[in-house]
């Protein structure tokens, strides 16, 4: 499959990048500039003609976006930091183990060498009816997410249910991460949980002229115990079919604060509402873990976006959440 034709832009600074973004977008509409970092998400999609941008903005030369740094408020991870770097960072492993564990499960070692944390946060939502070639989609009928106006997974529905399928955002939500976004108008910061819309098609709040710069992990989340559990068929390569991140802090054996987030079972990564309240001040036992698992399963809304059935994926959210909670509490 050939790539559609495009012009490659290669800025060296954030300022240059956002000014290029501001310039390109006004007239391009559907063919708006796409930003490429590791390329592991965008390139296959461009081959499938899911994106046919006039310009591709390659941000890999922008050194400002690289690396992991400790700051006063916590730890910053530049958007261009590879998932391999995240996985092997001693700093992150020590303070935010749930993130390194989630990073370690992404795709395969080779893809993690290319893929970046910024790309993982911005990862396009996925659906078996969407991530297909142009020929395939023509044969099937176009859907809401691309070129059409209806949904194959929820026939009759008008909402897109493509599943958000990145691993690290579930961990980042548990850590109360914030992200910093640049545009020609300046910089803005937003909690990660407000970045996602919950819709499968326009799944993130990132304007065409904006660039994700970094993710900030607050000091208050440092030292949380954490576990990430991922459902996939193969032990490598696969996107998550369901994912659960659990992070909690303890005092005197009791849970003091806890957050649980799910991925790959909704159009956005989601924090499980009520989990913190259920866990706070308690000692985790089998029964409590079970209750949390039930709560998580009710939060999950998987549909037929992937090979495994929705019922199975929901059930695994229950099992994995329970196991993750027990593992964190006993660790």
């Amino acid at each position, binding site marked *: 499959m*050939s790539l559609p034709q495009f012009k490659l832009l290669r800025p060296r600074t954030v300022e240059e990048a956002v000014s290029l973004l501001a310039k390109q977008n006004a007239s391009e509409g559907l063919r708006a500039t796409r930003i490429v970092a590791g390329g592991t998400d965008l390139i296959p999609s461009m081959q499938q003609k899911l994106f046919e941008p006039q310009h591709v903005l390659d941000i890999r030369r922008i050194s400002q976006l690289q690396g992991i740094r400790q700051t006063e408020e916590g730890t910053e991870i530049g958007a261009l930091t590879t998932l391999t770097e995240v996985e092997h960072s001693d700093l992150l492993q020590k303070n935010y183990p749930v993130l390194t564990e989630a990073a370690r499960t992404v795709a*395969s070692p080779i893809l993690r060498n290319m893929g970046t944390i910024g790309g993982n946060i911005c990862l396009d939502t996925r659906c*078996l009816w969407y991530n297909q070639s142009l020929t395939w989609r023509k044969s099937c009928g176009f859907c809401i997410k691309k070129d059409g*106006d209806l949904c194959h*997974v929820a026939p009759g529905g008008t909402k897109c249910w493509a599943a958000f399928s990145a691993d690290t955002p579930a961990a980042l939500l548990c850590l109360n991460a914030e992200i910093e976004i640049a545009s020609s108008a300046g910089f803005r910061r937003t909690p990660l949980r407000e970045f996602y819309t919950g819709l499968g098609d326009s799944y993130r709040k990132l304007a065409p002229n904006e660039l994700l710069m970094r993710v900030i992990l607050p000091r208050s989340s440092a030292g949380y115990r954490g576990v990430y559990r991922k459902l996939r068929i193969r032990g490598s390569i696969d996107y998550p079919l369901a994912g659960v991140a659990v992070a909690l802090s303890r005092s005197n054996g009791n849970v003091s604060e806890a957050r649980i987030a799910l991925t790959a079972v909704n159009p956005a990564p989601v924090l499980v509402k009520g989990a913190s309240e259920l866990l706070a001040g308690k000692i985790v036992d089998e029964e409590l873990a079970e209750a949390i698992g039930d709560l998580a399963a009710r939060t999950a809304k998987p549909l037929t976006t992937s090979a*495994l059935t929705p019922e*199975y994926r929901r059930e695994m959210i229950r099992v994995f959440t329970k196991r993750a909670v027990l593992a964190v509490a006993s660790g």
Partner: protein
Amino acid sequence: MTKDFSIIGKRIAMVDAAGKTSGAGKYTDDLSLPGMLVGKILHSPYPHARMKRIDTTRAEKLDGVVAVATGKDAPNTYGILPVGHDERALAVDKVRYVGDNVACVAALDEATADRALELIDVEYELLPAYFDPEKAMKAETDLIHDNKPHNIEKDYHHVFGDPEKGFAEADHVAEARFIANEVTHAAMEPHSTLAALEIDSQTGKPGRLTVWSSTQVPYYLQHKLSLVLEMPMSQIRVIKPLVGGGFGGKSEVIPLEIIAAIAARKTRAPVKITYTREEVFWAHRGRPRTIIDLKTGVKNDGRITAVKARVVQDGGAYCSYGVVTILYSGALLGALYDIPNIQYDGYRVLTNKPACGAMRGHGTVNVRFAFESQLDELAAKLEVDPAVIRRRNLLQPPCVTINGLRVQSYGLPECIDRVVERSGWKHRKGKLTRGRGLGIACSHYVSGAANSIIRSDMPHSTVNIKIDRDGGVVVYTGAAEIGQGSDTMTAQIAAEVLGCSLSRVKVVAADTDLTPIDIGSYSSRVTFMAGNATLRAAEEVKKQIALAAAKKMNCAVEELVFRDDGVFNSKSINVGAGVPPVQAPGGDERGRSSPHRSQDQASVSGRVEGQILRGSLQQQRNEEGPKDFMTFEEAVVAAIDFHGALAGTGSYAPPPEARGGKFKGAGVGPSPAYSYSAQVAEVTVDEDTGEVIVHKVWAAHDCGRALNPVSVEGQIIGSVWMGMGQALTEEMVWKDGLLMNPGLLEYRSPSSVESPEVEPIIVESIDPEGPFGAKECSEGSLAATIPAIANAIYDAVGIRLREAPFTPERVLAALRAKKNAKLLDLTEGIDPTAPERFREHGGALWFKGKGPERHASDPARRTEQA
């Protein structure tokens, strides 16, 4: 008798290994020619439709497009089987599956060709389509092929012995439906073809056609190209470059191979087409999803009294190898165990899906999964050890089975014993921790079909050998190296017979202009058949060398020994100074001669200046009188001087007594020899998630003789691994004939993470007819893996899965049902312990409302408009 070989039986690196690992080796897609165009194929978006009109004008006008080929450029039908000529390279009147071939654009570059595909206007009239074979069999109208009533490609009904009586005599009978879902080869190299037509420089008319293609069957490709293009075979040259895996997916003519030639003829320029991975899935020819209704009767001691199988294969839209597949499924119920009574009803059914064909373990795998699972059930019912029940049903070779299969060498008992011993079966089976289990299963496969696809008396393999004064041995074989080691095997056999080092042997393979006919690399026939042909060719050459050498050495031909790059007089081998002793070959233990050695030898024989001096060297030898030893080169030169030239030829055709019975369909199943396999798998099952981990597989395989043990082990490990893929993760997911996972991301072949340790155990039964006793080793092991895992899952957690693959959702569904847990629909309504029909992916394919403008052809909309 153990024979002392110098090259056979040694662990030898593949002769093409370095080229492949360094990237220097050339596969078809690596090739290019001056002025070469890129071909891209337009595929049908509909599963079943009549083509009312095709207009290529707009595409042809696009800058950079040289030509657009359509069905009318070469409308002749073809197919791999003479009874199945139902394909056209490009559709003429009808398309029969999503992905069927409609037109081909030849353009200056790929992007232009892709754009041009969008500009081809095709008007279709949609027809009702059939996706489920049992429904397709009920159809009266809108048949997929007009000459196939009820969409049945072929059905066979075989009765051997008296099955009814056998079941009446049985103490226990098990009966169940098994379903094996569809899998594909997933070879790493996508299909690729480069076709170039010479233009006669005098007349300007098209002349000879040369096709480089990723094929397992160069000769069949040459034949089908001739049929479709209406060119004499002598005007067509097929060359097979390196092939990156076949597994059956390249064992017949694939549409792009003919389409590239059509486009080359139309454009008068070289055209290369390389499939995308999605196109590989559409070209498919994989293992059909299969329904197996199986009934087995046993006596209390475990002896099988009768077997009855009804097999329905969802064959896809074209015949392909289908008739052979459905016959193998029945025929190879025999030849593994002694089954006195067999009833077999096989249906190969057409559906509007990509065509299925031959895939590693062709026809046997899915039925073997059912059979070995059911035997395990019966063993449990009888409280007989599953290894023991298999031992109680052994054949007594040499024998001919009830369905006419001749079995000579039979290493199955030893295979069973070895895996039982190595796995600690007797003290571990049934005694592992909860959730952990062991399972055993057996399988077998042909070493080539005794009857070729095209019925004739033609030898199945012919090999020529030429040796010139330089002492280089050139072996010409049509056998197709596809990564399985065919070239290495050929070189080894030639070198062993001629007693020369492996490095002297150059194999020229799979080029129809240069190499004699070999029917190709499929049904595990190459070692047995091309190996035997090589052996015979080498022996013929050896005989000629021996005649001349014996004269020179003044001894009888029978006294000569060919070994270590020399010819020895065996009677006086130990006398004579300066003769390199047999016991100390200069080559390393991998059979290659070391460079140092040839120098030493040169000084010994006084030869320092190379070949030019050979004449005088000869002279010198003559003057010296009879010798006990000649170097290989000296012997060769003597033979050429004596005979005028040195060449030999050998061919192989299976013996008449191995060709099976006389009934309809008896031609498929017979083989000159069968390989045997027994395996034990150790698994754990997570009872909350249904995830299965295979920890280890002990795999014993009777390959007759291991010509190259490292290669045999590689094939065993590969078979187990591929079988494990079908057992656990690989499955083509369908929705109304649309393949939901046409890529290697969603079609999940196992990754290295879940690959278990495989302990390959080679069993050598020394077949009386195989080359040095060898039989096949590349396919027979696959089929045992699936039931071995199924039986291990049963041992671990007590669930009997009758639908493969055993994905976590299926395993969990069965576990929950066993525990009477709350019912969850984990498997789209199909009970994996008692499946009734094939599963469809959830969701809905077609819009039910308005779509964008360019999707006007949605059938829902069309009804609305009408």
